[in-house]
């Protein structure tokens, strides 16, 4: 089976769609050979996974070499693919039938276009840097080899997810990254909180996956195939009934909410920080959590038509994103753990992306995904570096003043923060600004307001984090020191795109719009690209700066009113936030304990009194009434009478038949001859 797939994929030019890209591609180009071999991207890390498992322990670096080689290859291939795509190439769609059921086929294939290439670059870059970072961060770890194996498997699964051309293959990748996330979060499973967190992550995303699979099945029955391009075509050309589209979109949204940590399934992401920091950087900042956003972007036709996004007003997608971005930002204020701050920040930024998709700003959302991957990974790796120095604690209360000891970490962290807050000309500004622009132009007023408030809060809590960690006096034990090169070099590498990459889509350049666009063949569908609005840009910058100012005032200059936190209603709000809106309480005490406590007791009471009462009553009734009746009437008279009658009848018949046994030979002989005569006559008559 694998051989036939390999054969068909190696054959050049099969099922390649010749289509024109948007904007700058005038000529009808054939698909580039590099892009056609996109199936190599998931394959190489998958092979590396098995290789590390089998050989890793014997190698001098315990398998890390294989992982680094594999991810290095994929990184180079991704860069090559990017160059090929930018240079002009047709979209590659290749597939082969893996399994045919007579009624439907299950295909395996690749679909390489701008979005895919962008994801390639993101995933491989961050993965490669994480591989390098982990060499130092997990030095001497007892499960070093398995860690690298899991990293390889994760990379392979994520690449499979982004290169898939049909929903089934995408779901396979989706589930596999969930499994890898489980494995990696629970890497130090000897401590119960870690394994609990891993389980929570897996189960929460599983809840979402129900919606995902039901949505995929709905679309299959609506369109007749799992192929994403076909689904988009059908959705955008009125080939699917609107009710069905809406149902499918809502179901898929459930899966997205699980995987991309949208309200109310966001609860797993902060707990997932129990895993090693490089894992958090790779999986829970840059790649896995954006799988949901990617799914929406990929099947945007379904969502656009299903939620009627072009008609303005609020829709479920925008609402989910807007709510998420707001509540997560609020929660980031009350965290003491630096990773948890970043986790809530991630949830909030994912909310931005989903909200952007909800307002029709497709390119803005994808661009934000792109930029966010770099600076969030940078921030997480920076947090890891900080912890490495501060004796493996993440509690900001035990940090402080670290900028004196860790200059490289400090400066890269600052760059990441500024990018996140959205100050121009750094990356985050351009992408976040486009989202707000899309909200404004599409008359999504609520989203605009929420987004702006969220921007303020982002700047504020990041400022808080920076001040608590790097400024003031060091509150921990011992003397912190700068981290070794293997940790700081990835930080510096990531700082570069955080600074500059936003310029790709700056007004006047806007290359990103050309390279990554939502395009469905044979369907006229055009998403608005709005012109740069300097007024809005200025306002959003001012908001961000204001956020930093407030943070400085409260946390650096300590100018906040004393005892503010103790006073009501601030105290109540603070507690509410600290308890994470009591969502976990609802889950644990409400649902679980409610079932264990009152419901269980009630059920027991019913069992003892009602059910047992019925059983006992039936027993007594049987004894007193039913049994005598059965014996006297049914048994003695009916049944015995019947038997007596049968016996009597048999006896009578026997008496009759006995007369044939006369004992007289001549009688027997008579019968014999008569029979012979009759038989003979019959035979003679018949023949």
């Amino acid at each position, binding site marked *: 089976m694998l051989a036939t797939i390999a054969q068909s994929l190696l054959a050049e030019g099969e099922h390649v769609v010749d289509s024109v890209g948007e904007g700058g591609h005038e000529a009808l180009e054939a698909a580039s050979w590099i892009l056609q071999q996109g199936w190599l991207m998931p394959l190489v890390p998958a092979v590396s996974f098995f290789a590390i498992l089998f050989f890793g322990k014997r190698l001098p670096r315990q398998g890390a070499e294989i992982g680094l080689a594999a991810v290095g290859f994929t990184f180079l291939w991704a860069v090559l693919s990017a160059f090929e795509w930018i240079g002009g190439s047709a979209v590659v769609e290749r597939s082969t039938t893996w399994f045919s059921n007579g009624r439907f086929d299950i295909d395996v294939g690749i679909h390489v276009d701008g979005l895919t290439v962008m994801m390639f670059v993101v995933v491989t870059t961050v993965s490669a840097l994480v591989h390098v970072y982990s060499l130092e961060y997990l030095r001497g770890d007892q499960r070093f080899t398995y860690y690298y194996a899991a990293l390889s498997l994760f990379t392979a699964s994520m690449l499979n997810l982004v290169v898939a051309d049909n929903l089934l293959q995408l779901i396979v990748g989706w589930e596999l990254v969930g499994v890898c996330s489980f494995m990696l979060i629970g890497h130090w499973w000897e401590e119960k909180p870690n394994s609990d967190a891993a389980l929570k992550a897996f189960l929460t995303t599983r809840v979402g996956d129900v919606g995902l699979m039901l949505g995929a099945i709905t679309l299959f029955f609506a369109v007749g195939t799992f192929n994403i391009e076909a689904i988009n075509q059908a959705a955008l050309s009125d080939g699917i009934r609107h009710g069905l589209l809406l149902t499918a979109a809502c179901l898929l949204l459930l899966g997205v909410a699980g995987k991309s940590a949208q309200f109310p399934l966001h609860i797993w992401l902060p707990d997932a920080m129990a895993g090693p920091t490089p894992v958090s950087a790779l999986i829970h900042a840059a790649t896995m959590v954006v799988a949901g956003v990617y799914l929406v972007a990929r099947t945007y036709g379904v969502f656009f038509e299903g939620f009627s996004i072009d008609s303005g007003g609020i829709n479920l997608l925008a609402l989910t994103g807007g709510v998420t971005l707001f509540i997560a930002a609020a929660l980031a204020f009350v965290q003491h753990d630096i990773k948890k701050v970043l986790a809530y920040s991630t949830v909030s930024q994912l909310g931005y992306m989903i909200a952007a998709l909800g307002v029709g700003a497709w390119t803005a959302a994808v661009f934000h995904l792109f930029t966010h991957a770099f600076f969030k990974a940078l921030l997480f790796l920076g947090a890891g570096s900080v912890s490495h120095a501060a004796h493996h604690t993440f509690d900001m209360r035990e940090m402080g003043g670290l900028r004196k000891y860790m200059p490289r970490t400090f400066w890269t962290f600052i760059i990441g923060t500024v990018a996140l807050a959205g100050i121009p000309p750094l990356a985050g500004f351009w992408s976040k600004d486009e989202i707000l622009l899309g909200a404004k132009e599409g008359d999504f007023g609520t989203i605009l307001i929420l987004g702006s408030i969220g921007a303020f809060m982002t700047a504020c809590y990041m400022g808080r984090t920076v001040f608590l960690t790097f400024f003031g006096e060091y509150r921990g034990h011992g003397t912190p020191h700068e981290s070794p090169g293997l940790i700081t070099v990835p930080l510096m590498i990531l700082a570069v795109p955080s600074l500059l990459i936003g310029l790709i889509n700056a007004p006047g350049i806007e290359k990103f719009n050309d390279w990554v666009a939502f395009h469905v063949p044979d369907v006229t569908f055009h998403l608005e690209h709005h012109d740069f609005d300097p007024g809005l840009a200025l306002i959003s910058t001012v908001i961000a700066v204001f956020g930093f100012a407030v943070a400085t005032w409260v946390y650096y200059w300590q100018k906040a009113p004393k005892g503010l936190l103790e006073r009501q209603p601030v105290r109540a709000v603070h507690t509410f936030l600290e308890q994470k809106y009591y969502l976990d309480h609802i889950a644990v005490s409400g649902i679980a304990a409610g079932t264990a406590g009152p419901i269980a007791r009630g059920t027991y009471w019913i069992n003892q009194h009602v059910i047992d009462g019925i059983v006992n009553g039936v027993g007594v009734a049987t004894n007193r009434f039913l049994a005598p009746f059965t014996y006297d009437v049914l048994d003695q008279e009916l049944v015995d009478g019947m038997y007596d009658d049968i016996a009597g009848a048999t006896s009578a018949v026997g008496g009759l038949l006995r007369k044939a046994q006369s004992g007289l030979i*001549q*009688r027997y002989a*008579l019968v014999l*001859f*008569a029979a*012979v*005569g009759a038989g*003979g*006559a019959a035979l*003679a008559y018949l023949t």
Partner: protein
Amino acid sequence: MGPQNVAFGIIAAAMIVGAIRVVTTKVVVHAALYLVVVLAGAAGLYVLLAAEFVAWAQVLIYVGAILVLLLFGIMLTRAPLHPSSELDNDQRWPALVVSLGIAGLLIAMLADAFQDDKVRITNATGTGEIADSIFNQFVVPFEVVSILLLGALVGAVVLARRDD
């Protein structure tokens, strides 16, 4: 109507009358004598059919030995020598029906099967011919019949002896 047919007619009539008398007479000894008529008639028929040896054996064995045996039996069982009305049992009439039925069946079938076939007697069957047949083809049945006779002899003796 050749002389053979006439002879046949006479013998046949005698045989049938004799047989009917065997099964209907009220005197047991008379039955035995009528049986002689039947047996002798059979021998005559065999002569008509030019089966000399069989005719001779018929007379010798049947009339000579078996009939005597039957007379001994009559004697030893104290059969009534006078006419007795107790010689027929209750199922006379059903027996008559059955026998007539079988007769009719047989005659009908035979008439249908051998409508106008003639018996052509080319030469008399000599004893030598029969002897050849017995001792060439049927030697095993011959020996077996010898043993059968021996068995019958011994059996009869054993059955009939007194136990004291």
